[in-house]
């Protein structure tokens, strides 16, 4: 299965399961990423971003600590420091570093972290939407839209204004009133984004404790977070579109 029986033991250990296996190099008990005894980088274990950092799957995490761990691991795993005499160790060091970067980038961002955790929970936003449409088709009921109607109205209106501004800009004109109106809406959207983020954070604690309690509480909080992420995503895309037109 693996290139050499000698290395087998190290491959299957999860990063957060502690030093339960032997270092491929010195035979001492190893830590997740490198051997604490001889300092050799270990082959990457199949781990999600949380367990890569030895963290429980919780949303309300200590970002300062995450950052410290990231910098420390970055230094220790740096490919320049390893594999001078061993090309496998050089490769593992590269792989570990790339996993480290992915994990850090995802977890430090509150939205990215929530999105990632929900994906670990099996939430696929597009699949959900498709399933809801199929349900609406078979029952004849109205599909529950993930985006609330009032937000959709605003989005539609703003898009109409953006279209107008785009046409004006192409013709070399600028309607100051329209510019001001769009600028105002952009500020309102950005404020809404912040509100949605703090609402989302409000559910973190509930999720983190609900994870150990019961399924229905879990589902309820999960759906709330999905809803907030959907709305925020919508607004983020819209702000991006506004900026694009303003920069024309």
């Amino acid at each position, binding site marked *: 299965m693996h290139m050499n029986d000698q290395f087998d033991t190290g491959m299957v250990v999860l990063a957060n399961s502690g030093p339960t296996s032997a270092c491929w190099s010195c035979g001492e008990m190893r830590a997740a990423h490198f051997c604490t005894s001889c300092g050799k980088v270990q082959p990457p274990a199949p781990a999600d971003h949380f367990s890569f950092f030895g963290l429980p799957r919780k949303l309300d995490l200590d970002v300062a600590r995450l950052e410290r761990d990231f910098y420390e691991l970055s230094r220790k795993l740096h490919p320049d420091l390893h594999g001078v005499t061993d090309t496998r160790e050089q490769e593992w060091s590269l792989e570990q570093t790339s996993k480290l970067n992915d994990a850090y980038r995802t977890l430090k961002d509150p939205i990215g972290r929530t999105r990632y955790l929900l994906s670990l929970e099996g939430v696929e*936003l*597009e699949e959900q*939407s*498709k399933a809801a*449409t199929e349900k*609406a*088709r078979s029952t*004849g009921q*109205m*599909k529950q*839209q*993930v*985006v609330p*109607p009032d*937000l*959709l*109205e605003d*989005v*539609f209106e703003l*898009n109409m204004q953006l*279209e107008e501004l785009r046409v004006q800009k192409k013709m070399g004109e600028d309607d100051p009133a329209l510019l001001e109106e769009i600028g105002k809406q952009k500020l309102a959207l950005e404020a809404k984004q912040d509100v949605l983020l703090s609402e989302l954070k409000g559910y973190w604690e509930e999720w983190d404790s609900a994870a150990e309690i019961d399924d229905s509480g879990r589902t309820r909080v999960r759906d709330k977070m999905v809803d907030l*992420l*959907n*709305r925020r*995503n*919508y607004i*983020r*895309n*819209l702000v*991006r*579109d506004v900026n694009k037109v303003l920069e024309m």
Partner: protein
Amino acid sequence: MSYSDKVIDHYNNPRNVGSMDKGSSEVGTGLVGAPECGDVMKLQIKVNPQTSIIEDAKFKTFGCGSAIASSSLATEWVKGKTVEEALAIKNTEIVKELSLPPVKIHCSVLAEDAIRAAIHDWKKKQETAKPVAVAAQ
């Protein structure tokens, strides 16, 4: 990713772009959105109250080529159909007609949602409009 010829045709020559009077009792309006991509789609139908046949349809979509093509096609398809027939339109038929790739399936879902939402709006108006119409006479 490249668009199919049909998508490009609908994108370059969208059918039935425009809007109708939202307040009219014969008009149903569906406004739907896809958070994955930020698309927003408005589809309106004008229904003959005697025959339940959709006599006209208009749309306005802000989104990618596939979203525009899906809604353009949707307005073509619903025209001349009864509301019940229009409710039977499935997103998979739109996918097939436009040869949409998997990443663009949500555009067809959005178009089906828009048809459904417009019909729902029209039906709701029929239920509430009648007593009002009587009272107005």
